[in-house]
């Protein structure tokens, strides 16, 4: 019997932090995400659940990641921050309409599978 077996693995990378994502350190997030995308990964989960503070520079880094991932045929899913005020800001800026947001990283990974 002649069998051809192909192992098809699509990588999904989860980026998580418990630090603020603000103008001071958003460049580090951009740099790390760009390196991951450059490495050929286009399915990213950015886990904001432990982020205590997110400003517009941090949000711009998320948008940049989304644009780059989609340009490469992928997507970025976000995990909602536990911080209620940060959740409200994401709704106020309508990020929840553009990003697929989940409550856990595992849920976000699962959505990539379906």
């Amino acid at each position, binding site marked *: 019997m002649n069998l051809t077996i192909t192992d098809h693995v699509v990588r999904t990378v989860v980026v998580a932090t418990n630090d*603020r994502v*603000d*103008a*001071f350190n958003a460049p580090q997030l951009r740099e790390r995400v760009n390196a991951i995308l450059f490495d050929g990964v286009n399915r990213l989960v950015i886990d904001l659940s432990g982020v205590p*503070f997110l*400003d*517009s*520079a941090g*949000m*711009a880094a998320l*948008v*940049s990641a*989304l644009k780059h991932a989609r340009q490469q045929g992928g997507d970025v899913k976000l995990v909602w921050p536990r*911080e*209620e*005020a*940060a959740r*409200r*800001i994401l709704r*106020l*800026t*309508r*990020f929840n309409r*553009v990003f697929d947001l989940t409550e856990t990283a595992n849920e976000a990974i699962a959505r990539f599978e379906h």
Partner: protein
Amino acid sequence: METNETVTSMQLKLPADLEQIRLVGTCISLMLTDVCSIAEAEVTIYNVQLAVQEICVNIVTHAYEGIFNGQIQVILTLTKQPSTLIIELYDTGQPFELEAVPLPNLDEIGEHGYGLFLARELLDEVHYETRQSGNYWRLRKHL
């Protein structure tokens, strides 16, 4: 921090640096933590911190663009009747055209324009003027 029956105030002078401006948020939290009348205190404190952070980032990255050793003077004033926090910011950087900043198109997500939008949404007043001595911002939040 100076305190009397109706007013608490705090002044600080910071290097115009994206890491140092985080201190302003800490001071806002210190001033507002004991104010009992604030509805949804945690969210309100976060919102004020975020709005002020946005203006401070604007000062560091635009007013002081290409300028080293800039400083930001911050005066926080908490009045009790009415319960209001006023944040005054002074810098000596380049003047800013507040009205020239477009609102972000929320239906077409982008990377720019959210800072001032958030400050205006989250505060009751965002006032800017150019003075002979530099730039002056007055931000106000009713508590």
